């Protein structure tokens, strides 16, 4: 390991309603892989966004190669040699691999783009990294794993000194992970400084030199990986939160009525012949890797995207759902993984968002009965313990967890019996996460039926009564919680990928 190349000191950042980073310090040395760990919402990504200038810090300082710096945007950071390989890949699907790698700084011959030279340079880059990808291939034809390799190649082509990997293995198969680790080890040998964000404990032990743990926006501590045990790290991550054990037994009786049956549903490449049943009072987990088609399945059921074929039965009755309007009428509510885009109207108040799906019941003649609206919204704020000074608060001012509660309130207000939670705790801090879990359990106990899509294994194992696993648009298995292990799920989740 070499000297410290990058140091972040006492970084502070607030968002409306959230203290996202509370005097966090972090450093990384040349030739080291430094893991940044913590639960969702611990502030890892925020810290890296502050580093690369996507967010501006409220206070604190960043020292890079001995000089205090402040990057204004990813471009500046990139030019200085700090690059980030994002969790979501930023590739233009219809361009070739080489065109993607050199996007924004294309080689030119006169005024024409020199594709030949770009292909050659990309090939050299891949050679250096020991990656086998054709630079002329179209990006969208590659697997997620290959696309990520391209993203890494692109990062390195920027003459990177610090590379940040943001949960790089979230969407990869076992063998792809192996390849990735090989590349990371090579980079380390070349004296690259690497920040590795993940919460997969096994990987941390295998690939990293040091581990820094964050919790609720605070710095908890740094350990040398070799000298620490898994339990040390877990204790630091979990802190005050007591984790519930995985569910061992389904709470749903075998003879509970089927409230939703999906029969041979097809909708594009991502939803192929999906069938399953949901019982009353059940939490049905949907597990799988990123891009397995779970969200697409949910959206097709809900009528948000068109279906090609398949039938849906609600309470045993065949139901045609061609639009979200139809779905809501049938008593189905959908809580999107992307609240900001699909869940809430940020410029509207809590009260207005709460009645969004059920406004028809809040009319006095042609006028909206705002008094009744506010009263009901207040009841939901109280029963879900949403933290807000009043129901007149604009939703934009709430934290992620509280925004999620507003979305839940919207569907409870409509009195939907079937709720589809898509990544219900994404971007929510740990305390609020537990509240959401409690709430989901309560709803199930009251007889609501829940489909829960989640990429977090712990969440799936803790919440589900039964688990459907998907891979590349197909359902690859169904497990009763009693016979579920993490390995079984992973096997099913990667069954179609080689």
């Amino acid at each position: 390991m070499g000297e410290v190349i990058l140091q972040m000191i006492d970084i502070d950042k607030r968002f409306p309603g959230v203290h996202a980073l509370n005097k966090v310090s972090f450093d990384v040395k040349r030739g080291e892989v430094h893991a940044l760990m913590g639960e969702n919402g611990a502030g890892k990504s925020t810290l890296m966004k502050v580093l690369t200038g996507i967010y501006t810090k409220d206070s604190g300082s960043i020292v890079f190669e001995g000089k205090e710096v402040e990057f204004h945007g990813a471009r500046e950071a990139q030019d200085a040699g700090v690059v980030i390989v994002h969790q979501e890949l930023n590739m233009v699907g219809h361009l070739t691999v080489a065109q993607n790698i050199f996007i924004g700084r294309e080689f030119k011959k006169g005024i024409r783009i020199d594709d030949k030279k770009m292909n050659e340079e990309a090939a050299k880059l891949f050679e250096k990294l020991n990656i086998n990808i054709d630079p002329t291939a179209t990006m969208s034809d590659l697997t997620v794993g290959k696309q990520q390799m391209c993203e890494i190649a692109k990062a390195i082509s920027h003459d990177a000194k610090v590379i940040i990997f943001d949960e790089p293995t979230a969407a990869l198969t076992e063998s792809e992970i192996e390849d990735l680790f090989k590349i990371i080890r090579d980079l380390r040998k070349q004296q690259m400084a690497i920040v590795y964000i993940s919460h997969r404990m096994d990987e941390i032990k295998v690939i990293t030199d040091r581990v820094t743990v964050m919790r609720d926006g605070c710095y908890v501590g740094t350990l040398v990986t070799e000298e620490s045990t898994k339990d040390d790290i877990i204790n630091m991550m979990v802190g005050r939160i007591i984790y519930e054990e995985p569910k061992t037994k389904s709470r749903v009786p075998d003879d509970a009525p089927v409230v939703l049956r999906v029969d041979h549903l097809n909708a594009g490449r991502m939803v192929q012949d999906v069938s399953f049943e949901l019982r009353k009072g059940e939490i049905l987990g949907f597990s799988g890797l990123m891009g397995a088609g779970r969200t697409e399945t949910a959206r097709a059921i809900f009528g948000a995207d068109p279906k090609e074929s398949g039938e849906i039965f609600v309470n045993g009755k065949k139901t045609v759902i061609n639009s979200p309007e139809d779905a809501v009428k049938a008593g189905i509510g959908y809580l999107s993984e992307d609240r900001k885009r699909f869940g809430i109207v940020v410029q509207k108040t809590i009260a207005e968002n709460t009645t969004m799906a059920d406004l028809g019941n809040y009319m006095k003649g042609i006028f909206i009965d705002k008094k009744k609206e506010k009263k009901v919204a207040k009841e939901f704020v109280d029963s879900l313990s949403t933290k807000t000074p009043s129901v007149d608060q604009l939703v934009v001012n709430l934290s992620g967890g509280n925004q999620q509660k507003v979305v839940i309130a919207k569907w409870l207000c409509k009195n939907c019996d079937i709720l589809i939670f898509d990544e219900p705790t994404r971007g929510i801090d740990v305390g609020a996460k537990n509240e959401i879990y409690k709430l989901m359990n309560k709803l199930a106990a009251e007889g609501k039926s829940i489909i829960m899509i989640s990429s977090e294994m712990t969440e799936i194992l803790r919440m589900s009564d039964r688990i459907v696993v998907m891979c590349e648009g197909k359902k690859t298995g169904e497990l009763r919680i009693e016979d579920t292990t993490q390995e079984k799920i992973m096997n099913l989740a990667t069954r179609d990928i080689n």
Partner: protein
Amino acid sequence: MDLIKKIKENPIIKKLGFNRIVLACVLVLMYLILSLMVDNFAGMPRIMSALNYVYFLGFLSLGVTFVIATGGIDFSIGPVMFCCALVSGYSLTSLGVPMLPSLILSLIVGLLFGMMNGYLVAYWKVPPFIVSMASMNIAKGVASVFTKTQSVSWPQAAKGGWFRSLVKVGKFPVGIIVFLVVAAICSIILNHTKAGRYILSLGSNREAVRLSGVDTKKWEMLAYAICGVLVGIAAIYFVGAYTTVQPGYGDQYNNEAIAGCVMGGTSMAGGLASIGGTVIGVFIIALLQEGILALGFTKDYQLIITGLIVIVAVYADVMARRRKN
């Protein structure tokens, strides 16, 4: 800075809207300055002349406020207003249709154009910019064909033009009352009905509203339809004040109507709209037009100034948004 913050937090000011109060002050200030600079500016003739402008521009602006609230835009309102005035005027003067049905015809023509625009935008997903550019030309063409490219003069009050009493009776400006009442109705629609709630919400986040099980297409189309009817009313006030309309014109009023609307605090990005702001904005535009003429400049300068107003107002909105994020 602290003082401004304190003022902004005051409940009464919050209720009225800080920006609207500033805008109203601008209006009053403009009026005072013009009165000092121009002899007899405060006199009745100028006020009546400015009001004539306020009426038709005001209805256009109210209409386009609904469309902009959805995140859309309508560049056809000026020519459609002319089309309404020409089709109904020609029916009245050359085809022998009585007055009342002619006036209703004006509203119907406006409604049809609004529904067409709305349908294409909401159901066919054609970008509003393209739709309204196209329907602007359609409106001009329809008007020319219908009137055989002749201008139409609406009758004077003495010759059966009783509709002019909607504008003024003697010296009394009836139009201002009608305008304010319609504006109040618009404000109620926008803030207290399902239509307004969904129009504003879908302007802010269409997908979230659609995924709440709301028929967003219907409500989006309705916004354009409301705009159309208001354009039809604007046509009546235009001929009520200026009597004669000629086919092939009307474009210049698009910009002015949109300027009045965005100046009043309606966001071009959709989701935020203020009818009160639009009303004040319209008064400012009308006063500006009167002032420019009174100071001896030509109408061309007004085109330049309203163009700049649109740019500045939209830029201010963009900056305010960025700061919030």
